[in-house]
């Protein structure tokens, strides 16, 4: 008697799972299909589900509307800030995991609080400072500002990772006379690579997605892709196909990275509140 109930439950579950997937994926489906429509097809009411696709929008945005240029800027900024965050964050994470010192807790707390500071608080002072320093509209300004969120993520995830490495290894090396730096570089860092990779992927995703700093600090030469997408809406007619082509180009890399780090994305977004 239990079997029919169970299979009925299984069906309900299956339907629910399909609903969840549809709910999550449908907007992407619509984004991609719209990006393949000409403006005439995109402005059909009601919208068409079947049509002859064209890649014209992609050519136009990439080569005429400078989205290609913006994507390159995004790529430069996101990779540099990630490299910098990993370079600065890994040793700090190692110190937090291995060394004992006064004020460790406060330092930790301070790193974590950065997760809560809204970029809008920092954007205007940085706008003024970077103008005075001649850093306005440069990649450097964005790379540095993105450290406010990438560095805490790297530190959090890598500290966790370093803690999970057995201390017997470094103690043995210490007895052999190795310095802390050698232990870090030769023993712990290679073992912590999975954590480092995850934190790098997350840093990249968050930097790639950032809009507010980019919008205020880099209006032209260092304009990133999300900021470029915003400007499309400033005209009179909204070019649906082009907007969605740009969106697709922006979103594809992050989705690939997100799927690669899918198990850890939540950890990154919660700063480790969830293991």
């Amino acid at each position, binding site marked *: 008697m239990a079997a029919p109930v169970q299979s009925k439950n299984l069906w309900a579950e299956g339907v629910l799972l399909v609903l969840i997937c549809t709910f999550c994926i449908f907007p992407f489906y619509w984004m991609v299909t719209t990006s393949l429509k000409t403006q005439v097809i995109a402005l059909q009411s009601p919208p068409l589900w079947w049509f002859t696709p064209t890649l014209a929008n992609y050519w136009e945005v990439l080569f005429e509307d400078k989205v290609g240029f913006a994507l390159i800027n995004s790529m430069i900024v996101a990779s540099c800030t990630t490299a910098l965050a990993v370079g600065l964050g890994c040793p700090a994470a190692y110190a937090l995991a291995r060394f004992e010192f006064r004020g460790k807790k406060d330092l930790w707390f301070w790193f974590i*609080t950065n997760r809560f*500071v809204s970029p809008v608080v920092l954007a205007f002072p940085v706008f003024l400072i970077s103008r005075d320093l001649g850093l306005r509209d440069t990649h450097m300004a964005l790379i540095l500002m993105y450290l406010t969120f990438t560095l805490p993520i790297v530190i959090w995830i890598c500290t966790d990772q370093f803690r999970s490495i057995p201390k017997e290894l470094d103690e043995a090396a210490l007895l052999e006379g190795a310095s802390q*730096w050698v232990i870090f570089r030769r023993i712990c860092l290679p073992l912590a690579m999975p954590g480092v990779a995850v934190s790098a992927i997350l840093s990249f995703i968050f930097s790639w*997605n950032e809009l507010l700093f980019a919008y205020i600090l880099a209006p032209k030469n260092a304009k990133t892709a999300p900021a470029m997408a915003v400007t499309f809406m400033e005209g009179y007619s909204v070019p649906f196909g082009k907007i969605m082509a740009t969106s697709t180009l922006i979103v594809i890399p*992050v*989705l690939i990275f997100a799927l690669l780090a899918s198990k850890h994305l939540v950890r990154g977004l919660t700063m480790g509140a969830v293991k």
Partner: protein
Amino acid sequence: MTMRVPRRTLFAFIGPAVFALLLVGVVPLGFAVWRSFYYFNLTKLSESRFVGLDNYAFVLTDPVFWQAMGRTATLFAVAVPVQIFLGLTIALVLHRPGLGFFKVLARLSLVLPMATTYAVVGLLAQVMLNQKYGVINQMLGWIGIDPINFIGDPTNAFIGVIIWDIWQWTPFVALILLAGLSTVPPEIEEAAQLETKSNWVVLRHVQLPYLIPSLVAVLILRTADTLKLFDMPFTMTRGGPGSATEFIAILIERVGNRQFDIGMASAQSIIMLAITIALARLYIRFFYREV
């Protein structure tokens, strides 16, 4: 069993990171505090002057500021319970055994919305919610509902932002709660399931206590992120129509970036930061106990 090391070694490891964060996180903050005591408008630089706490007095009694705060609070109060309800449902389904392959698939698709560039979500919202050409209105038409002007009508635009906030962050809540569910010791859960047939009883008396930390995490992070929320409503409506979707971060951006009143924007952002920190501390006292 951590060890003490010479101060020089410690600084070599941790100094650069601390210095970098001071430089990009604290120096600008100090600058903002300093500017918040000035009348400082980029279009009227010659009139710049020290005004003491005037900006703060103005902001604290400014209905526009509190309306934006109110909208932010309303968004939180409407969207977060829905996210928790839907997220918990999804988490409970994914937590059950069976249908392994489909569950992996569902988990992967849950990752997509929260990784999506927030600005793109706003653009997607614009395209999909369009009154005439939008697919959502087409679907509403299938069930006999007339097209809704989502972007142009103040109430509907607000509802639109809520819908997309729910779309983007329900998966996040679901995955946090799913991680929480996996902390319930399996023996206890199985024993409870043998005792009672009611899933509700198991949830209420066995699983819920283990979910409390996750729920607190959800509240902390959703609070901070709602106060930060800028990209999605900005690309969707620019805070409009009127000021219907002008949440606190958009208001500050408008005052600073479009009205050039940086002194005022600084005062607003310092007050917002104080509110964020007060709320976060309240939650953190309750939560981030480790380390």
